[in-house]
């Protein structure tokens, strides 16, 4: 009993996801089919890919609030290159991803130069990127992307709904899970999130790590942007606006602490899917589409509150355990 409660607490997002899934299966016809499941994964592939980067940042103890417009500006750039130049598609994709990496590393550079936390730098950048995205597109949507490019996201394998985007997402999730849980690099990231000073004094080159993490975030956001505009076949300045809130909510639901140092990729995936399922469900139920913002806001606040509650509860339990430990130590002595 206690074990299963423990499991539910540690994997809250997964439990809620199964619960929500069961609810929709019971109330909506055709929900529980392979095709539908694959469609949901396909629709969220780009969010989950971006999440891989943002989870890395958050476990490392930072926050990134520029995700949406970062992706938008990369998407817009990519779409413009595709429609206005004759450069081969693979080169354009590479350029897009490299630009994204450069932007994210620029963020790291600015945090270092200005000496302010990443969250504030990225809040500033979000507006900056937004401006640039509108200026270079003249606030028009760029559509008619070449088929060869759209295939990157839309092409399928084995099953008509199993897209390359989904496969790519799955591969990244597996790799990131492994990297975070098993590698030296993962240990360094967790250490930095757990206690930055102790990490530095343990010999971790914190500055170098922040650039590496920055580069990886840029990579994931770049790929996510390519997948997103490949799936929709169009790009505009507000293509990915507001995505960061979905990602942040999903990651927090997935058990990553806002203070860093803990989290599991698989649970974050469940968190993202849960958020997606909720907004999807509300649409299916025919609610006013703006209600989903209210729902997301409520979820976000609940999750943050829960995070704080966990922390407080932990310190209470720790005190108790500590006292017990002192007592047993005394009895032994």
């Amino acid at each position: 009993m206690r074990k299963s409660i423990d499991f539910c607490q540690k994997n809250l997002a997964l439990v809620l996801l199964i619960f929500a899934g069961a609810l929709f299966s019971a109330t909506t016809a055709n929900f529980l089919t392979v095709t539908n499941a694959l469609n949901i994964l396909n629709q969220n592939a780009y969010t989950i890919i971006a999440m891989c980067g943002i989870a890395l940042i958050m476990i490392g103890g930072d926050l990134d609030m520029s995700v949406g417009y970062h992706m938008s500006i990369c998407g817009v750039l990519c779409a413009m290159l595709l429609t206005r130049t004759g450069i081969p598609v693979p080169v354009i994709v590479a350029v897009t991803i490299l630009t994204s990496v450069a932007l994210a590393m620029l963020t790291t550079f600015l945090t270092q130069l200005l000496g302010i936390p990443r969250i504030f730098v990225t809040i500033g950048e979000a507006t900056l990127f937004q401006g640039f995205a509108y200026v270079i597109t003249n606030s028009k949507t760029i559509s008619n992307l070449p088929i060869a490019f759209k295939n990157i996201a839309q092409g399928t394998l084995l099953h008509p709904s199993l897209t390359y985007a989904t496969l790519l997402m799955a591969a990244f999730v597996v790799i990131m899970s492994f990297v975070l849980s098993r590698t030296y690099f993962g240990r360094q990231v967790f250490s930095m999130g757990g206690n930055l000073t102790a990490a530095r004094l343990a010999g971790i080159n914190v500055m170098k790590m922040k650039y590496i993490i920055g580069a990886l975030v840029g990579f994931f956001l770049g790929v996510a942007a390519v997948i997103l505009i490949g799936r929709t076949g169009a790009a505009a300045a507000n293509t990915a606006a507001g995505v960061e809130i979905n990602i942040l909510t999903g990651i927090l639901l997935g058990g990553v602490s806002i203070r860093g140092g803990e989290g599991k990729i698989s649970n974050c995936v469940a968190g993202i899917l849960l958020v997606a399922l909720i907004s999807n469900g509300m649409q299916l139920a025919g609610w006013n589409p703006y209600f989903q913002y209210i729902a997301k806001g409520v979820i976000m606040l609940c999750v943050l509150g829960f995070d704080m509650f966990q922390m407080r509860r932990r310190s209470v339990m720790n005190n108790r355990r500590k006292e017990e430990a002192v007592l047993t130590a005394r009895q032994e002595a």
Partner: protein
Amino acid sequence: MPILEVSRVTKRYPGVTALDDVSISFEKGEIHALMGENGAGKSTLIKIIAGAEASDGGEIIIEGESHRGMTPLDAKRAGVSVIYQELNLVPSLSVAENLFIGKKVGGSFIGPDFKEMRRRAAQVMRDLGSNIKPETLVFELSTSQQQLVEIGKAIVDNCKVLIMDEPSAAIAVAEVENMFRIVRELRDKGVTVVYISHRIDEVFSLCDRVSILRDGRYITTERLRDIDRRGLIRHMVGRELSETFPERRSRMGEIALEVISLTGNGDFDMDLTVRKGEVLGLAGLVGAGRTELAKMICGDVKPVSGEIRAKGKSRRFGCVSDALNIGVGLIPEDRKSEGLFMDFAVDWNIPSMSFKRLSRFGVVNQKKVEALTDQYVDALRIKTPSTRQVVRNLSGGNQQKVVVARALAAEADILIFDEPTRGIDVGAKQEIYRLMNRLAETGNAIIMITSDMEELLGMSDRIAVMYEGRKTGELAREAFSQDRILELASGYSV
């Protein structure tokens, strides 16, 4: 009639009885020490006296009046002031505003009369023998000056009982005397001071009586002139300690580390050498630049000029891992904020400096991690229910051992201990001393930064003294004397 009486107070937390039927009475105008090992119940007791925690049984009697369910405000009104270890001042307000916080000082409904407030604040600070200006902002003050402001606050509150929780822990040796003087003056004015401290010398030189708690129970109250150190320690730990400082038999080897006119991070022209098997004590006031020196030696801060030679070669450390690779490891001053990952398990913390060595192709070998952890948990006798236990749950002494283990596990053999026994109890201190001795005996070189005079004299083979970023002298074992160290530390000989 005692001014403050604690009568049969019991406090239970889930799973543990923090105070078990404790009764102590405090007389008017005495300095009454409260002693006991960590976890003996001192903090709980003062929290109950201050109304910050409710007791489960018993009562607090202040001037003959019984108080139950007292709130902090009730306690203050009854004349009890507490100066906690973490000072409770508002850093962004002035000294005067802090002194009179929550009080009406003349003025109209628009606001207080600041001129009057400053005048009175200046008076209070002058009475304390301090020339701190009332308009100074608190964050500009040193810790000891802030402590004075806290004392001033208690005086403004007209306190009859002043409780001080380890007031000397955060301030430098030279400043302690001044604090003593003020405490004695308060006593002579009829204030009762309840003085909590781990430092035995201090209690003997300052206090009139001492009450001892052990494991949440009241043991005894003695006049300090009727008891000796041994007796006091016996009451505290419930057993005789063989000696305070275990003897060390180490052979000094070749020079392990040499610092030659190192400048940077606030230090100037520092010269030091430490040999294998040697414990070099580094003395000085808080802010003398000792920790800053340690940070340069361990590669955390780059020196501006000068040279570090380790194991016979000149070294340039770009970051901490460079120093670790040569075997130079720092056991930092503040274990909670600098040394430990508090929410991570023991088997993360101990190998945390060694993960690179424990991985192949970037993948961490969990078996090796466990083996290394077990090895050091055994070697250092770290008391933990399992290696999966989160470090936050361990006692201070065991946490300190984890920080030491982390450096040892990284195969460091030139070790810099920065305040190795701060905030841990007598028994755990002994274990740390024995461990340091064992390390020296097996050929490790140790630099020990400490503000604890007994520890400095008891553990060092040689003592270097610093003052304002410079070395002011070095003493060989035969020349050790408290007075001489204090002189050098206050810069008299410069």
